[in-house]
């Protein structure tokens, strides 16, 4: 059987992705940060971000997507797991039981009140873990296609 090459380069997609990409990444961060009060969160944000990078892959090629991410997606998974696990520890320092949420309210002069917390840290961990996992699978498959 003749191997079919994977080629989806199209001008429309290419141009569209250049405009869409920053928006998608911003949107994923937006989803991540507002997740605690409105629909969103680390998981959803992570999926959006991963989809953004995948868009780059389809619009250009594997190498461009790899360069855009800079690091290997498995490293993102590792960092995500570490952050999520770290979020469980501060409670022990103040003598509460494992994984109890800790909140620190910081007053910033212009932006107003900033809510920092271990759930946020945890959600960032989930965010990175999801991006890393999806992109590992996508990249691995694309790479297998590439070679």
């Amino acid at each position: 059987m003749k191997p079919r090459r994977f080629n989806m380069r199209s001008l429309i997609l290419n141009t569209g992705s250049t405009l869409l990409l920053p928006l998608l990444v911003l949107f994923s961060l937006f989803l991540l940060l507002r997740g605690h009060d409105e629909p969103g969160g680390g998981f959803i944000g992570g999926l959006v971000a991963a989809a953004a990078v995948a868009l780059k892959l389809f619009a250009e090629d594997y190498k461009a997507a790899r360069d855009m991410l800079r690091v290997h997606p498995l490293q993102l998974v590792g960092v995500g797991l570490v952050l999520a696990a770290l979020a469980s520890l501060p409670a022990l320092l103040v003598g509460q039981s494992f994984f109890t949420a800790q909140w620190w309210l910081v007053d910033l002069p212009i932006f107003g009140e900033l809510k920092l917390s271990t759930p946020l840290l945890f959600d960032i961990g989930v965010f990175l873990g999801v991006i890393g996992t999806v992109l590992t699978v996508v990249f691995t498959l694309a790479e297998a296609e590439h070679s």
Partner: protein
Amino acid sequence: MLIAVLSCFILACFAPWLHRLGGRQSGWLLSVLPAALFVYFASLLPEVSQGGQLQFAYPWFPGLQIQLSFLVDGLSLLFALLITGIGFFILVYGGRYLEGHQSLGRFYIFLLGFMGSMLGLVLSDNLISLFVFWELTTVTSFMLIGFNHEQEDARKKAHQGLMVTVMGGLALMTGFIMLGLAAGSFELSTILASGTLTEHSLYLPMLLLILLGTFTKSAQTPFHFWLPNAMAAPTPVSAYLHSATMVKAGVYLMARLHPSLGGSEAWLLILSLFGAVTMVTGIFLASRATGVKRVLAYSTVMALGTLTMLLGLGTEKAALAAVTFLLAHALYKGALFMIAGILDHSAGVKDFRDASGLRASMPITTVVAILASLSLAGIIPLFGFVGKELLLEAVLTASIWQIGLTIATLVANIMVVLVAAIMALKPWFGPQIETPKKPHDPNVALLVGPALLAVLGLVFGLAPALAGNGILTAAASAVYGQPVTIGLSLWHGINLPLMLTISSLIFGLIMYRFWAGWRHITRFMQTAEKFGPEVIYERLMLGMTTFASWQTKTLQNGYLRNYLITTLGTVIIIVGWALLRVNQLELDINFSDIKVHEFAIVALLILSAIIAVMVRSFLAAVAMLGALGFGVALLYVFFSAVDVGITQVLVETITVLLLVLVLYRLPEFRSLSSSANRIRDAIIAGITGLLMTVLILAITSARQLEGISDYFLQNSGPLGHGRNVVNVILVDFRALDTLGEIFVLALVAIGVYAMIHLRTGALPVTNSDRRAAFTFRRSQKEKMKADEQAQKEGEAS
């Protein structure tokens, strides 16, 4: 107390650095810790020898009533002193014995880790923590036995020891749980104080399970085979684990639980019988062996059998005999094992047949070996004699099988004398023969341990009250459950035990004279070993792996359809069975309040599912599945689960992306399945769908307990500081679940990565692979060079 136990583990973490720092003397450096611990435990002696008990408790899992609590009484203190005392000598000895070994640092880690686990085991007051330490000794000893992991034999033997003891450990855990439930507490001190448990309905199963654990650990017949095999370990390890500490853990536990579980008919019969059989089997096999360490290992099996038998008899005398014999054995066996190591280290001798006449070149070693062997043989005035007299007295006053046990003990003693004679005479006297290394007395680091232990055997023999009043009476009282009033003395007068000792001495020396002949007469054992427990063990292991590979081949044969059939079939059977058991299945089916657009979505869902099955193109099928997923997402949104809806949409999008990537790898669309297969698949799919629908309807209409969603809805604001309940649940209320899930995600990522790269052969090699390839290439190059050289030389001549 906590610090005392943990310090070993802490030091273990830093051992490799300290080893680099200490260089040649690293053994001495590290041995400061056991020495300090010995002094600490010795400082507790005055209080404990008065019959006092010290308890220390630290909360660990307060919710599960598990606390890290320690109990120091005569028995645990005796063990703690042995562990730290002999541990000191072993560290000093091991540092020199393995000097220059590339992984000496690792040796220290495991040895110190083992020491800590062993201390924890004997000092624990809580059954659960005792069990944890018990398993830790198993794991660390596995590492130590397999220390020379480049040798396949060492790996195999380590594995064998691990399997046997872990199997026992499982039984032990079950037994412990029963014991804790029966006694109403997991604290040993409470259990021991609450009197005997022999009348409890769980008594027999609990006893059998605990004994299975102790018998495997303490190498009782038929589990005795792993102990001599564990001699694959470096000699310092054998000297420590297989003489004084680990194998005695089982004995310790039986002694510890004797006041609660002992005294029943079952206890008496099982322990005396297995103990006596192990005693005779062990010493018989020892008398046949010729390898230095093997002889000692089998005689250790004999000692463990003797101790089990004494604990089984359970009289006051037997309790005292057991602790006395235990101390005597630890002293002389530790010394003898270290001498076995010296023989190997300084003369290259591993087998008694290869050594003779070494006394001239190794005078000090000879004296120490003779001193320790005399104690082993039980000759006055050494401490072994005291132990042996008490043993005989205990057996003679046994409540059952007096004659049988006495004869067994006598036979064992005769052969013990033989073994002692081999150890004391064979390598040192007679004509001098060539040894692999030039024999010489070793460095002080190697000699100090055996010498001091052997001299202690003499000191305690001459002044038994020193050991007796110091610790042994207190230890015996802890075993017996009541204060023991008999004192220790060297001379018991001319009585039956003395006569038995003298006759065993004479017969033993006669046997030594005809040792070669004895081995010849008993060579039938070589055939018998083909049916022995070790062969049964190997058969079982082989059977297990065969079964495992058959099962894997059947269940995981690589066809996705088979996986699906198995999974769905299991679900159908289990869920169907559960649903059938519900007597009144109330299905609340009500179409009245369904809106038109909801009907439309459902119609869309059904339609896309049907089309997905019917179409004859991968891309179309994927698109249809996507439509199905988006339809479900719409439903979520209409039922105001926005988060779930968004997630569903995104997951669908990415699934379609992934499938598109994969599609190009697939062969062209073809029909391969027969109609019968399709009908079967349709039936399975139909039943699964139906069952799930019924299940969900049944669950929603038959909810009995109040749901937890109200709690989450009310508390996500005040407790979780968030208005999005779904997110608060994910990252706060059930954060531990989410953590587990993202770990699973990571595993999936690694799995996909490895699987695809492995297939394309692009997986980066590990460092060890690289190193192996490098050494292989270099050796090939060197070989080629050598060949060329040889060829040139050949041509030249």
